[in-house]
């Protein structure tokens, strides 16, 4: 059974909580006592129907207390797949939250109110999905019950979305007309929209091909730890532990170790359960080499004929996550794969108006929730790929050295 991670984007009142509640309820992922509790609570509030949105409502009280709720994770499973939902509440810090929640997603669900069509929020959500390189985007045109399940209304919104999305780099786009409230096309096929021949949302979530979401071409193995038991049984064992970030590794492969550039061959790929004939992203393994080379945390094992970029000058898109604005020409710590370096901000090239995708070139102040293109210089070369090529070797975080807080999310261009 595969694991699919998805995020849901939407603002207040677009039916996001109802949709998640509907997915959980119709996929029979909630227990009777949970259902009884929300049924009781719905009755008390005078709701006509059982309000499924209450299933995910645990965070409202905390939000009112001012506690930061950037992402809440929820879990459910069907016989076909297991799902992790990164649920980002749609309030003022939306960009920061959605960037955080989407960073590990395979798929993004963007909700659109059928009565209002494509609005500024839709534009923002789609842009962030594309910025974060989420492989699959599903536009759910919700509240179809309020537009009489009209095919015309749906087609109009769909063509608006297609026109807009063509400006962005989104690989795989789907459109589904739904009513989260009544359950149309969520888990069960709608009887009211026989003009829609596509799949339901659940069918898509269960069947969409995610096997290619990881890069299986460029071999990248950032070394996390060196394993040296120095025990009687393993006196000379020297294994390099890490999680494969790309490509397929096999024993016998000719590899290069960066940044030194020394070459060797893979002797074995080890796990406690036995040796592997091959290993690919995102497996955690230990690799041993034929030759005795000095390899340590922060190094990267790659194929000799397919190497990442090695550079100190790096261009990236960033999303600023902290209420303290970015210091012009400031110095920040960086975490990138298993590497810790420092950097200086060389230039803010432009800021992005993410509501209309226009570039802002006359205002270079980077505040929380801003998205911008910047260039930096690092204290030592990073071993990286473009973010669009590899989400692991192409991503980094900026850290404020005074507070140790994570202040920026970077995607290398």
């Amino acid at each position: 059974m595969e694991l699919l991670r998805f995020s849901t984007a939407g603002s207040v009142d677009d039916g996001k909580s109802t949709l998640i509640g509907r997915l959980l309820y119709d996929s029979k992922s909630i227990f009777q006592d949970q259902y009884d509790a929300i049924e009781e609570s719905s009755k008390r509030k005078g709701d006509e129907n059982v309000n499924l949105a209450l299933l995910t409502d645990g965070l409202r009280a905390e939000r009112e207390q001012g506690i930061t709720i950037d992402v809440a994770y929820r879990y459910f499973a069907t016989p076909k797949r297991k799902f992790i939902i990164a649920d980002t509440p749609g309030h003022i810090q939306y960009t920061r939250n959605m960037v955080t929640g989407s960073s590990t997603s395979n798929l993004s669900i963007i909700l659109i109110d059928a009565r209002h069509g494509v609005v500024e929020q839709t534009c923002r959500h789609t842009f962030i999905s594309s910025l974060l390189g989420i492989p699959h985007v599903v536009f759910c045109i919700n509240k179809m019950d309020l537009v009489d399940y009209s095919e015309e209304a749906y087609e109009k919104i769909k063509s608006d979305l297609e026109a807009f999305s063509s400006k962005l780099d989104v690989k795989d786009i789907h459109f589904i007309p739904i009513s989260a409230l009544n359950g149309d096309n969520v888990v069960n096929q709608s009887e009211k929209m026989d003009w829609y021949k596509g799949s339901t949302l659940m069918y898509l979530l269960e069947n969409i091909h995610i096997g290619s979401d990881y890069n299986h071409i460029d071999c990248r193995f950032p070394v996390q730890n060196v394993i040296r038991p120095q025990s009687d049984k393993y006196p000379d064992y020297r294994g390099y532990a890490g999680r494969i970030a790309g490509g397929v590794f096999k024993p016998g492969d000719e590899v290069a170790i960066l940044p030194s550039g020394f070459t060797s061959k893979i002797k074995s790929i080890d796990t406690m359960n036995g040796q592997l004939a091959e290993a690919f992203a995102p497996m955690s393994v230990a690799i041993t080499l034929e030759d005795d080379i000095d390899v340590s945390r922060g190094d990267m094992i790659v194929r000799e004929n397919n190497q990442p970029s090695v550079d100190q000058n790096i261009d990236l898109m960033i999303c600023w996550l902290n209420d303290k604005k970015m210091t012009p020409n400031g110095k920040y710590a960086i975490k990138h794969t298993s590497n810790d370096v420092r950097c200086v901000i060389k230039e803010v090239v432009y800021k992005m108006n993410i509501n209309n995708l226009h570039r802002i070139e006359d205002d270079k102040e980077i505040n929380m929730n801003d998205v911008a293109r910047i260039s930096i210089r690092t204290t030592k070369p990073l071993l990286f790929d473009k973010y669009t090529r590899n989400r692991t070797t192409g991503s980094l975080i900026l850290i404020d050295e005074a507070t140790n807080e994570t202040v920026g999310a970077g995607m290398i261009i």
Partner: protein
Amino acid sequence: MQSYSLTHLQELESEAIYVLREVASQFENPALLFSGGKDSIIVAHMARKAFWPAKIPFPLVHVDTGHNFPETIVFRDQYVKDIGANLIVGSVQQSIDEGKVIEEKGFNASRNGLQTVTLLETIEKHKFDCAMGGARRDEEKARAKERFFSHRDDFGQWDPKNQRPELWNIFNGKKNVGEHFRVFPISNWTEMDVWQYILHEKIQIPSIYLAHERDVFERDGVIMSTTEFIEQRDTEPTVRKKVRFRTI
């Protein structure tokens, strides 16, 4: 072309092993909280996998309430011996004896609330800068937003208004002197995943998780074990039943 994909258990395991390895690298003196319960057992199991064929490079810490089922302690001691790990026990009884905490009284008295004090004391005494635990986000709604790496200030407090955003698989364990982290490698696991994994990996668990005959009584709809640590009311007669524990 061959399809390269992992099962959900393989992916969750890989994620947890990655986190365990990050902890070993980013912290100077980490520890793994080990209660002998199923969640901490699978974390310990994956810690073995993460560093195999070397031993787990940090100690296992048991915050001992003194109110244990004997089966759990027997299991704990055997397990630690089998994997050659270093066990440190922090004793709630000792905290009570030293007057640092006050024992709860009454029918629903429990030592669960006192554990926190003993835990922080143990962390301070051994200068641990990271304590890993088996907490999961699906356990309760409030945990749904908990981080993998959760920052604690120099009083051991969690400030929910000031948690670091966590992106991709990049974990920021940077801290000032005196601060520490709580890390939860199985954040993304559900109860079902834990049981499936135990079955799949054939992991040994304390016998009380499996059905057996035991003296029990009922309180507010919950079946509880008759023990010297819980006072029973007259209206709560002991009966013998076939039971298994969901939580210990």
